[in-house]
């Protein structure tokens, strides 16, 4: 009698555990997809910037030429996901990263573009990517 009760408890335990376990596995896969999405998204955004490291914008400030560009610091891009309250998507992520603006100064345009760039501005940005129909989008 005692043995049968234990077997029943163990069986119920297994029934209860299995879906939760597969849910956790599913969530870790979605998190892995999110990490891959973030890397791809940030790389793409940097590539699509009109003014970038390879093509800085040059303007005059007083008698000096200033070369400037903006880029996302990929090392700062971090995303955390959670269940969404919306009926339109299952999960939502909080993606945080820093967008840095660099400047270099010179007496000529080419001196400015080939000089040492230093960070003059930081924007701490947050975006909310969504998990829709099995994939992340933003």
């Amino acid at each position, binding site marked *: 009698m005692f043995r049968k009760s234990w077997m029943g408890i163990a069986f119920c335990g297994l029934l209860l555990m299995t879906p939760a376990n597969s849910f956790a596995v599913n969530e870790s896969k979605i998190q892995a997809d999110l990490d891959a999405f973030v890397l791809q998204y940030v790389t793409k955004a940097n590539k*699509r910037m*009109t003014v970038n490291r390879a093509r800085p914008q040059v303007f005059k400030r007083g008698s000096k030429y200033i070369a400037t560009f903006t880029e996302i610091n990929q090392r700062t891009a971090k995303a955390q996901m959670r269940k969404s309250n919306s009926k*339109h998507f299952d999960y939502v992520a909080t993606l945080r990263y820093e967008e840095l603006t660099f400047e270099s100064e010179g007496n000529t345009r080419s001196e400015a573009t080939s000089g040492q760039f230093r960070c003059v*501005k930081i924007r701490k940005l*947050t*975006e*909310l990517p969504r998990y829709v129909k099995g994939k992340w989008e933003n």
Partner: protein
Amino acid sequence: MKTFRHALFAAALVMGIASAAQAADLVRKVDSFDLLADQSGSMMMQAPELKMTKAAAAKQVLAAVNEAIPDLGYKASVHTIAPAGKVVEYGDWNRSATADGIASLKSEGVIFGRMTPMGDGFAANSGDYASMARPTAIVLASDGANNTGIDPVAEAAAIYQAQPGICFHVISFADTEEGQAVLDKIAGLNSCSVSVKGADLLADQNALNQFVADVFYTGAAEEALVLHGVNFAFDSYALDAKAQGILDEAAVVLKEKNVHVTLEGWTDSVGTDAYNKVLSQNRANAVKAYLVQQGVPASKLTAVGMGKSFKYDNATEEGRYLNRRVELLFN
């Protein structure tokens, strides 16, 4: 006594954590720096308002600057002029070793018969500057007076010419017009220079912190929530269902932040400027109205239509998508 020591330790720990957290939000403006102390005869003279010699005041200021620099992985050295010399070898910045080097500088010495070969000092140290990681800040603490030898302004100009990525900053202990004029000319050679009075830095910790920020790092200036996919029906201000879902999530973030938010609506470059300006304003208004419905106080939201965005390349579909966005700037 033991309790006091524990309290002191706890306070130091909290301050350490706070300062580490602060440093994590900062980006260094320069990769290396040199603290350059003028040890000339005129610096050994008393500054009556400071009740110490100018050299002693310069030591105090340089020590305070060294303490206030956030640990962002700089390389550093300490040099002197009049006479030119190396006090701390160039290498990874070590706050404690730099403090020891500053403490070893002279506070008192021979006053008469010693002119200041400042330009010669710049020239003597320029070889060391050439091998420093760029960008480099040279923080000069001097009274600028009684110069002899190479013209210091011309020598600083020559260093600028030969060594791009270097920048002279001035902490002035000048008590003569002539000395201040020399320092002003050095600071005026390049718009990168920050020029301050040593007495101000001694008297006001905020002024000292500002100087350190201006020379050594950039703080996080702006924070924003960027939303893509907040779409409207064609030529309309009506939010589609998906956009409402995104804004529901944004409202959660906004309610957590008790700050005023400027809501900027941006479009891609398709269409005329005037049309996009009006469209973006109306859409920004629609987004604001929806967020207010979700419980974000209207008084904390200002909607602005920014019109066309050229931040991303409008020649590509991806670029246009990234340009069509709503930015919520936390003020």
